[in-house]
């Protein structure tokens, strides 16, 4: 089976069996049996998905059939004008963005973009931005500020690209600049982690008034694999590293880093793109409508205070 995670297998096998039985439903009058199997699969699903380990969430966050930024844009918006380029160097394909309309509300929407197959992944650089990606994002945000449009960002990256040119062109400066400018942008910013939130590469478009995560995503300072290789000196401890890093949506809500968890359909976002997008859309509208009421000076102050509170220390 293609693109199926280990813990999804028993569920998918049962579902396949039900689908098979359905073909003969009329002839054999096995409705009762199908009903029992359907109950069984529902219970199994519930059981598996309510008890996911942190590593399993990481796997779901990376599921190759999950909706990506452009999928959400197409499902959520009524209109979208994609804008390209940082006006200094190039157009990074790992970050996309543009003006969009959500239920009559004009916004700027920006997100990391992964590819779905080898070819599109090479085109998108696996969702790993170069400095020009962060600079494009900042240009679009300043444009949004100029025309008083709220900014929506969607985070989904395995990290900023660790390459020669990226370093040479100031990867660190580009991310740092975005953190500073986003923290004082005069329009509302709503951030949603839709897949992977890997470190500075994610945070580079992740400073906002509301920070939310879809249910099966992760957000941390480092990926479990890299953490394993540095602290355990081996790639083999990724499951332990994922546990130790406390990187799930529930963990981050508890640590007061995010404001809200966006529920996914049972089985994960990849099982029902449209349903996930509808949930996200409704929540974005709700948050937008409350944030646009706040005056810009106050908004920026509240944002400063929001991040000021993050951290745990003893005095």
């Amino acid at each position, binding site marked *: 089976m293609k693109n199926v995670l280990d813990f999804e297998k028993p569920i998918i096998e049962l579902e396949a069996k039900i689908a098979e039985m359905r073909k003969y439903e009329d002839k054999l009058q096995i409705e009762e049996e199908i009903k029992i199997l359907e109950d069984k699969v529902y219970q199994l699903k519930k059981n598996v998905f309510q008890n996911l380990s942190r590593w399993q969430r990481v796997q779901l966050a990376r599921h190759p059939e999950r909706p990506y930024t452009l999928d959400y844009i197409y499902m959520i918006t009524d209109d979208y004008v994609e804008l390209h380029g940082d006006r200094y160097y190039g157009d990074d394909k790992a970050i996309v963005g543009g003006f969009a309309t959500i239920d009559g509300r004009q916004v700027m929407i920006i997100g990391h973009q992964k590819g779905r197959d080898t070819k599109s992944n090479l085109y998108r650089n696996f969702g790993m931005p170069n400095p020009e990606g962060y600079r494009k994002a900042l240009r679009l945000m300043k444009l949004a500020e100029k025309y008083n449009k709220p900014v929506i960002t969607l985070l989904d990256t395995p990290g*900023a*690209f*660790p*390459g*020669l040119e*990226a*370093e*040479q*062109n*100031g*990867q*660190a*400066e580009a*991310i*740092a*600049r975005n*953190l*500073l*400018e986003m*923290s*004082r942008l005069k329009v509302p910013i709503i951030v949603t982690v839709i897949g992977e939130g890997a*470190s*500075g590469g994610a*945070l*580079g478009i*992740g*400073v906002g008034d509301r920070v939310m995560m879809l249910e099966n995503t992760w*957000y*941390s*300072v*480092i990926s479990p694999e*890299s*953490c394993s290789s*540095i*602290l*355990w*000196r081996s790639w083999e*401890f990724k499951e*332990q*590293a994922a546990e*130790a*890093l*406390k*990187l799930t949506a529930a*963990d*981050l809500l508890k*640590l007061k*880093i995010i404001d809200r968890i966006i529920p996914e359909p049972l089985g994960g976002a990849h099982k029902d793109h449209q349903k996930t997008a509808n949930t996200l859309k409704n929540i974005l509208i709700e948050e937008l409508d409350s944030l646009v009421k706040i005056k810009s000076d106050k908004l920026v102050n509240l*944002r*400063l205070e929001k*991040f*000021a509170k*993050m*951290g*745990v*220390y*003893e*005095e």
Partner: protein
Amino acid sequence: MGWFKRSKENISPESQKFDIPDGQWIKCNSCSEIIHRKQLELNAWVCPSCDYHFRIGSGEYISILFEKNSFKECDPKMKSGDPLEFTDTKKYSDRIKSTIKKSGLNDAVKTGLGMIGNKKVSFACMDFRFIGGSMGSVVGEKIARAIDRAYNEKIPMIIISQSGGARMMEGALSLMQMAKTSARLARLDDAGLPFISILTDPTTGGTTASYAMLGDIIIAEPKALIGFAGPRVIKQTIGKDLPEGFQSSEFLLEHGFVDYIVNRKNMKEKLSQTLEYLKK
């Protein structure tokens, strides 16, 4: 080249070695010259024969830059919590305890107020020997408060970075320190107050991708390793050796990310000279 050898290091807790060994006679890591401790100290811990910059701590930087007895440390007692109850091969809480004992520091940054010449400044200096100078909640909070002091007293902010990046053992909380400190710098900038960022060996990861790269003026010590991704990771990604001098201070100067490189012996003078212009 000294910096190139050291580029193998990362933020792993094992790489805490302090550059200056004990004893009266010290061998230069670069040219192997044997130098008397006192002579090194008087030379700002720079090798008199080859200009190799020994890695020094916040205490040494304070004595190099500040007028005698003018520096008052703030928040010296702040210590790391263990919000994630993080354990790898060792418990984070134990690692903190043993590092405090070994280093005599409470975390990876010292902050305070002091006089450079006749100028009062708010100052923060990181310490690589405390878990690789990694930035967790304590570093983030102390730096944020130091920036607030600059903001409230309307004085310049100076930060010396020396850090492997964000601290893994505090997960996303460490990451958020980047946003927290950058937001405070935005406010300082809006108030028209100066921020000078000084980069020393090494400055990488989340530290570089936040306050270290946000100075009005960015200064580097010679031959420091400065970058976002670590050299090892980049090497793995591109599958070939890195060009000589890649991610050095000189490389950053060449590519436009550093205002100037200064020998530590002249840092105080050059800082004072620059500060003269950063006012209206």
